[in-house]
């Protein structure tokens, strides 16, 4: 809805536009441009940036030739795809159930509460469950007489489980609103026209909630590949992700160009995700 009023009242237009434009340009746009620029500079002897400025593609060369970084990139993608797939598998039926339930508002509240609960507290609660003397190991030892606890933490599986836990609300909410808008009489129409349940699901229901699915994937996959706290706390050496490499380049090696270059990759992926979900939104408006 575009109401073109007061095109002459330029003063008010600026009054409304200026604070937002100014703040986001200075503290988001500009810092992003800086790291794009820094990714093409040389690391200083004591960290930071070498002075005088030297333009070089060393940082990107390091990224694309260092086998350690490439390994972590592949691992990060692998972990993120698993997180997204499991999240979606759990979120679609859950959102479906909620949208068809009589108590949807109550269920939605229950979904939102963990989302409102402190992120680190949620990670920590899983340490109490999966840890060496956590509840699962205690049960296993009592029931099966296990002598030594299983190491359920500090590997990539712990990262996947805990990330799914953290991201599930982000996926359930957009799926819920898409399913809510879906016209279920279309499914009856499909079966009247001879489609079986599976065909109706695949060719009517899934396309019908496509925008919700894409949003859920974007809102899970993009934060997942940028994970830092979860792999840092429960990933151990097996669960290291790209985010941890950025942090260690930033703080331990003080290698700003490489940290910037990895960040740029994330920005490119995110921009693509934003473009995708903006496109879905436009399609929906049509």
């Amino acid at each position, binding site marked *: 809805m*575009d*109401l073109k*009023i*007061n095109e002459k009242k330029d003063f*008010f*237009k600026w009054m*409304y*536009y200026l*604070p*937002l*434009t100014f*703040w*986001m*340009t200075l*503290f*988001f*746009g500009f*810092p992003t441009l*800086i*790291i794009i620029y820094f990714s093409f500079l040389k690391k200083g002897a004591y960290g930071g940036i070498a002075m005088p400025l030297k333009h070089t593609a060393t940082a990107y060369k390091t990224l694309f030739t260092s086998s350690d970084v490439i390994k972590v990139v592949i691992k990060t993608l692998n972990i993120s795809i698993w997180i997204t797939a499991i999240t979606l598998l*759990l979120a679609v*039926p*859950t959102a479906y*159930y*909620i949208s*068809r339930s009589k108590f949807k508002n109550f269920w939605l509240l*229950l979904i939102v*509460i*963990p989302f*409102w*609960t*402190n*992120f*680190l*507290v949620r*990670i*920590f*609660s899983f340490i*109490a*469950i999966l840890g060496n*003397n*956590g509840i699962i190991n*205690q049960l296993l030892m009592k029931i099966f007489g296990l002598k030594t606890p299983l190491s359920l933490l500090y590997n990539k599986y712990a990262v996947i489980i805990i990330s799914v*836990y953290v991201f*599930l609300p982000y996926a*359930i909410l957009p799926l819920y609103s898409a399913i809510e808008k879906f016209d279920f009489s279309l499914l009856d129409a499909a079966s009247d026209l001879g489609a079986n*349940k599976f065909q109706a699901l695949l060719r009517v229901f899934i396309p019908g909630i496509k925008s919700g699915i894409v949003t859920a994937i974007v809102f899970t996959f*993009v*934060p997942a590949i*940028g994970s830092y706290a979860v792999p840092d*706390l429960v990933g151990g050496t097996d669960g290291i992700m790209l985010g941890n490499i950025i*942090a260690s380049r*930033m703080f331990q090696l003080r290698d*700003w160009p490489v940290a910037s270059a990895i*960040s740029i990759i*994330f*920005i490119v992926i*995110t921009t693509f*995700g*934003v473009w995708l979900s903006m496109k879905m939104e436009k399609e929906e408006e049509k």
Partner: protein
Amino acid sequence: MNEKRRISLFFFVLVMIFFYLPIVMLVTLSFNSSKSFAWSGFSLKWYAELFQKSPDLWQAFGRSLIIGVTSSLFSVLVATFGAIAIKWYNSKLKNYVKFLNYIPLILPDLIIGVSLLIFFNMQVGLYKGVELGMMTIFIAHTTFNIPFSLFIIMARLDEFDYSIVEASRDLGANEIQTLIKVVLPSMMPGIVSAFLMAMTLSLDDFVITSFVTGTNSNTLPVQIYSMIKFGVSPVINALSTILIIGTIVLSLSSRKLQKYMLS
């Protein structure tokens, strides 16, 4: 339909157990008298320790509150003006501003942290960089709060009946009068939910804060992180329980409060 309901019910129950088992665990353990995860009797000693012997945590909590309130207020103010701009005023800036606010919504926190840290630390010419502390945390939190506030307020503006603005103009109100007496009051529901959302995000943020925090300005999440990382004390269970209960009370009461304040 029945079969579909059963399958979806199964997943729904699974998700609910998955969601609430860890929380139940934490609450139970916070009343455990021993330090380990094994149950050895009811005790309130971790609560006593939290309230009497953990000044660091309370200071961090105080800082979190100050940053949360100030950055949420400021970002809601900027976002309210911005939402009016984007919805009702066409400008060449429109798509640029929208794009600039869309990206931080899903950009990994880490990247915002890295770019702000480099921005604050950068030394070029006369610009000598900024010392990290409460001010840099405030800037960072405001920056990630604005986009969320903006989109919540814009979504609510969709339901806004624009004819009341025209009516107010017809009745002789000028722009400022219309803004203060007509537009802002009817935008209140959106503004309040944006504020609550910003508050939650701010109190919750660990990653970005950890990048831009100074040596003596840790917020609560940063403090909790170092407790988890370097030796967990059951005090954290007690603290988590209080935070969880606080969250539930806040989210329930904010719904009631919103209804009460706005009806």
